[in-house]
């Protein structure tokens, strides 16, 4: 076999993510922030599958995958073992939104309540992408997925996104943050702060999925940026349960975000659903109000 030149990335080229994959970018960026002295605990999901078909691992740091829903519990055990052995590696879970918002909540709640020194990073692409774009507790209102499809009597997902950062802040987590791959430096700074804060910390990173959401692969960051500019995703930090910082924006109408994605196409065709778009605008307005993100023009 021809000699393969080794790269200098901790998350290596050669993984099998779709071109333009938000989660793959999140993996690369978060490892830049954690550095080498880390143990990654993965849940089953897109990232696990595209980065570790035996024996082709893309991870140049220690990495473990057990099941879909138990990353936080596995991390708890690793944390306890490292403590007993007097080791100082950072323990970082990297899990999708299905594993985090839905099936893994029990284990996450337990780990956060016990106060393990772990960082839990959820790469949020807002549906079960690995199994074919089914809705999760992180899927936004009206998004069409394969289990919440738009149809003659459906406008897509009927529920609003679960407030996972709020739930974990309520556990007493000393640091909780949201981020987006569209703002890579901000994301890396938040990961760095999270891993260096003792106790259980949480970072939820918006990771647009071109395949699942329906946009061109080159637009991953542009879509992520629009989510923030419309107020449908807010980048904020919570310290000891209080919001201490939120990214301010000059808000654009939510339509600019929705109209560029196939998952919201039914709101525009065959007939434009102004009523539904208004409901989503109201979600953005509530976000803006709650986090105070609006930059107001001087009167």
């Amino acid at each position, binding site marked *: 076999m021809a000699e393969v030149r080794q790269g200098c990335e901790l998350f290596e080229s050669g993984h099998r993510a779709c071109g333009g994959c938000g989660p793959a970018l999140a993996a690369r960026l978060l490892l830049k922030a954690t550095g080498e002295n*880390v143990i990654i*605990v993965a849940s089953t999901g897109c990232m696990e599958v595209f980065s570790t078909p035996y024996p082709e691992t893309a991870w140049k740091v220690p990495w473990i995958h*057990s099941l879909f829903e*138990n990353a936080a519990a596995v991390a708890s055990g*690793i944390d306890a073992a490292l*403590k007993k052995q007097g080791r100082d590696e950072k323990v970082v879970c990297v899990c999708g939104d299905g594993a985090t918002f839905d099936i893994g909540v029990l284990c996450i709640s337990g780990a956060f309540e016990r106060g393990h020194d772990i960082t839990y990073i959820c790469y949020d692409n807002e549906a079960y992408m690995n199994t074919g774009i089914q809705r999760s507790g992180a899927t936004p209102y009206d998004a069409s997925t394969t289990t919440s499809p738009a149809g003659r009597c459906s406008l897509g997902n009927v529920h609003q996104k679960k407030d996972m950062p709020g739930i974990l802040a309520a556990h007493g987590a000393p640091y909780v943050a949201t981020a987006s791959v569209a703002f890579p430096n901000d994301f890396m700074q938040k990961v760095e702060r999270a891993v260096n804060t003792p106790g259980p910390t949480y970072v939820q990173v918006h990771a647009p999925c071109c395949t699942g959401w329906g946009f061109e692969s080159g637009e991953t960051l542009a879509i992520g940026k629009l989510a923030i500019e419309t107020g449908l995703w807010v980048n904020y930090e919570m310290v000891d349960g209080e919001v201490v910082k939120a990214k301010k924006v000059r808000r654009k109408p939510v339509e600019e975000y929705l109209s560029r994605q196939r998952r919201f196409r039914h709101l525009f065709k065959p007939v434009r659903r102004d009523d539904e778009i208004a409901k989503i605008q109201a979600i953005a307005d509530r976000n803006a109000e709650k986090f105070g993100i609006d930059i107001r023009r001087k009167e």
Partner: protein
Amino acid sequence: MMEIMEGSHAVAEIVKYCRPQVIAAYPITPQTHIVEALAQMVANCEIDAEYITVESEFSALSACLGASAAGSRVYSATTSQGLALMFEVCFNVAGMRQPVVMSIANRSLGAPLSIWNDQQDSISLRDSGWIQLYAEDNQEAADLHLIAYRVCEDHSVLLPAFVCFDGFILSHTYEPVDMPTQEEVDGYLPPFVPYQRLDAKDPLSMGMYATPEYYMEFRYEIDRAMQRAKQVLVRAGTEFSEQFGRDYTGLVEGYRLDGADTALVAMGSICGTVKDAVDEMRDAGKKVGLLKIRTFRPFPAPEIADALRDVGTVAVLDKNISLGNSGAVGTEVKAALYGSGIRVLDYIIGLGGRDVRKEDIAKIVDLAEKGEGDMFYGLRTEVL
């Protein structure tokens, strides 16, 4: 030193001497006395371990998996519904080749809900890749933990193990137990040397997924490790016998099988009752013996066939039922004796804590000798 001890406390005491670094367990009857005792030992600094008070059995075993992968010796204990909740993690721990040792205080599975003993819980995980050892009494329950750690952590095995002992019947019963000292245990069980571990200085990806190109070979490797575990169990049992004077050289153990026409086959605490019944029947001139299966996984089929080669009839006592077929041990003993011409009959007994007495054993022998079997024994027909 000989002490009168509750089964659960004997287990907790020996686990302490095994020096686990991480203990993760969730309370469930009748396992609670073990983990309460260990938690107290941690609270008193009698044991240098992290005790993780997990929020479920599912997390208990998941945490053990993580700690083991990070290079620590680990311990957990559960039973019944708790073990059922661990189902997915059990297969995973074995597949990831982590030498986790877990006590099972055997209990029935609902519905109907029952806290009392049978062996349905651990038997239901027979295909999961865990070594399964069954104890007859509290001494054996304690001793088997030492042997289990030795065998599981052997680099030619690297598999997890259940050490099974009957809930309440052993876990809550006081018996004399010869408890070794810490020095004696240290002399038998060396410190844990992980085969590989999560370590930033030497990165490794663990628990990757396997395509059809590799999956079967990985499963084959686990099965081979299970087969190798037989020899390692015999070796560890022999060394145990030499050091402590109690005999664990065999995967199975015969009792008065010489010249027996009929043999009973059983696992766990029922073996004590069967031995008494056998003694009485022998005194009455009946040629009866017992074959105790201590190691259910790996299944000692050749050893069973060899031990039973001279008997005419075999009566298997099963504290479990594979609904729609028969008892698991009976099925496997029949397979082990296939073609031998020996008649094998299966009896489902003692489910959900139903008492089994010496006279029941004698009745089962009578039934077997008449060729009546493959049945539930001891049903209260008046409520059917």
